């Protein structure tokens, strides 16, 4: 059995791209559990009746989204160089997942406040000028109301103070923008809420939406590490 007090915390940063975006958060957890087991690195397991590999993910990613800023924490029983950890885990991860760096955790995941996303979509049947005009009219309002599902039910909130959007650009039929959204345990604005808000306002729901998380920050806008 492992010694309760003797483990080394490691944070692994990874990307989740391509068809891996169709793997739900719960399934990602299971996939990591198994991948780490295959790596034969000496991980720390929880004590108790059903010992399991200790794993925590900083900020769950919705089904269908890509990310280049994911992280997971685990514990080692014996020290190992970080590059070695990255190399060995990359050898066992399923297609679409790639470890990019590992290190000692510097921040508490509870301190996460913002995340950046690259978002693109198609708006077939809608005139470009009209689309751009509606978009800005929607998000330039003082208040952008939207119904958010929470554990205790549905609640209307104003997302305006919690979002920051770049210019919406149209390139070859697709629209692109970047979004900085409140994220973390206190308030989490899912990119999908932007489209829900737009739908409320303009009665139009873009299709073929593609979302990629690019960075995660604390309240001082320091990158999560």
């Amino acid at each position, binding site marked *: 059995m492992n010694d309760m007090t003797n483990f080394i915390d490691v944070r692994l940063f990874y990307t989740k791209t391509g068809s891996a975006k*169709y793997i739900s958060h719960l399934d990602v957890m299971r996939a990591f559990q198994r991948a780490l087991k295959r790596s*034969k690195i000496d991980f720390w397991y929880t004590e108790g009746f059903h010992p399991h590999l200790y794993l925590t993910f900083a900020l769950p990613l919705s089904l269908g989204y890509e990310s280049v800023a994911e992280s997971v924490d685990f514990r080692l029983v014996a020290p190992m160089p970080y590059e070695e950890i990255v190399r060995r885990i990359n050898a*066992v991860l*399923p297609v679409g997942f790639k470890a990019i760096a590992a290190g000692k955790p510097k921040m508490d995941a509870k301190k996460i406040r913002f995340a950046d996303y690259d978002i693109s979509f198609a708006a077939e049947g809608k005139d470009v000028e009209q689309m751009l005009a509606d978009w800005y009219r929607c998000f330039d309002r003082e208040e952008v109301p939207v119904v958010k599902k929470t554990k205790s039910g549905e609640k209307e909130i104003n997302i305006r103070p919690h979002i920051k959007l770049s210019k919406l650009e149209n390139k070859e039929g697709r629209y692109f923008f970047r979004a900085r959204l409140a994220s973390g345990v206190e308030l989490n604005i899912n990119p999908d809420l932007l489209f829900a808000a737009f739908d409320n306002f303009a009665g139009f729901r873009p299709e073929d939406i593609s979302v990629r998380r690019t960075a995660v920050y604390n309240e001082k806008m320091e990158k999560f590490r």
Partner: protein
Amino acid sequence: MPAIPENILSLVQKPARYCGGELNSVVKNKNDVSVRFAFCFPDLYEVGMSHLGMKILYSLLNNDPEVWCERVFAPDIDMEKILRERKLPLFALESRDSVGDFDMIGFTLQYELSYTGILNMLDLAGIPVRSEDRCELKNLVVAGGPCSCNPEPIADFIDLFMPGEGEEVLPEVVNLYKTAKKEGWSKKQYLCEAAKIKGVYVPSLIDVVYNGDGTVKEFVPKETAVVPVQKRIIKDLDGVFYPDKFVVPFIDIVHDRSQLELMRGCIRGCRFCQAGFIYRPVRDKHFETLSKNAHDLCDSTGYEELSLTSLSTSDYSELEPLLDDLLEWTPKEHVNLAVPSLRVDNFSESLLQKITKVRKTGLTFAPEAGTQRMRDVINKNVTEEEIMNTCRTAFEGGYTAVKLYFMIGLPTETDDDVRGIVETAQRVVDLYYYMPNKPKGKAVQVTCSVASFVPKPFTPFQFEPQDTREELHRKQEVMRSALHSRKINLDWHDAETSYLEAVLARGDRKIGKVIETAWRKGCNLDSWDEHFKFDTWMEAFAECGVEPEFYANRTRSYDEIMPWDIFDYGVSKNFIVNENKKAHESVTTPNCRQKCSGCGANCLKGGRCFE
């Protein structure tokens, strides 16, 4: 270009069913292979991905650099709707290419209620469902698996069947296809050559002639075909291919673990059990081979659970040495052992201790019938005392939940036998409360899962009528009114499903048009309660002028030619008839290890089963 645009995956529930890319899935360059094989499971991903046979054959075929075997599952309703609306074809997971692009399309036949799924999948791929409407060699549709022991109901749709075990015959059939493709054979030419391979059945090369009363008169082989076709078996399980990798799914599937196949066949000879007859003769795998297989699998998958699978795990001759071996490394590698399919009569204390070392959940036993007389009829050689002893051992080991499997509708059954099911469960409950050392403050829970008996081909009960649905419903009421304890949970499958299963299981070629009609009327995924449309099936029978009772509820005489007599499964008809007679006399037959009863299956192996 793959046939499927990526973005449709974001429109369906559980897109990971369709996106591929799972660990250990095999991706090849289609230009580097000479045969593309679509391995189709006619049910949802979660069910199909749990199936061991598919894992074995997938790895086996992909071991050949000239072959690329991909997986295909039945799409769920939402995905099917999108495919049909957008005129997109059914696709294989690895390449996302249309199933219509494949050379060979193989279906595994695990249960009768998946038959409409076969038609639906072919249709979604844009392939004509009837064999006679497919003229080219390409898209050759082949099938194997347990239900191919009576393939007649789907003989109109499948070009070639491989009854028995597939590890040897499937590569032979694929290799012949390579030659045929290279030399530009016609489909007919290929099928005629394939029919020469031992264990290959080509329905279009054998005519079936019927009597006026609808029973089979004779089989007339044409061209190269012979009757009967003898099923294939693997003589040496230690030498046969076993995968060192499983595809590890992302989503939760029914059996999400490493599986170790301990043996094939079963020594018991329970008279209702098709698996107990069609997988004969019994063959064990040595525990050293198994232990190595297990370790390889756990290493390559990262699975946290290893399950020992067989028809009757406690009958595996080297179970204790195997467990000792596995328990050497599984705890320190954080692998849990699961040991299902234990029998109640040889569940020893030392075995229990070994199992409880790693895992403690509910225990499951199958007494199958509620009275001793009934158990003797079905040759389930288990006594009431053994059931109680096993439950006592389990309770003493800290278990408080026991699940018991039973059947109703068995031949010669009376209401006393039916009530006996509930009474047996009640005695298990009483046993718990009379135990001085029962776990404190915990209630016992006895779950009785009661299936309706379905007579199956190649079993001694193949001659028996199934109880009518009305009779099965009445017997369910008998059980309900005999039930007085809240500690007993009674659940049963609906009789309608079992009725259709009975028709399909013992059907002949006349059933083909009923299956097609039912499917055209919307039947699909029939094994799912929420999709099962019994009334539509009955309409299909009526429209085709086929009476389901003829297949389900008729007593068949010993000398009737059965549709499946086209096959030789090793077990002699004489033996089956004798076993049926003994059932009606409530006489049991010893298990294969106690005494060879001369069923005939050992001739497949070229020797005796046990010395």
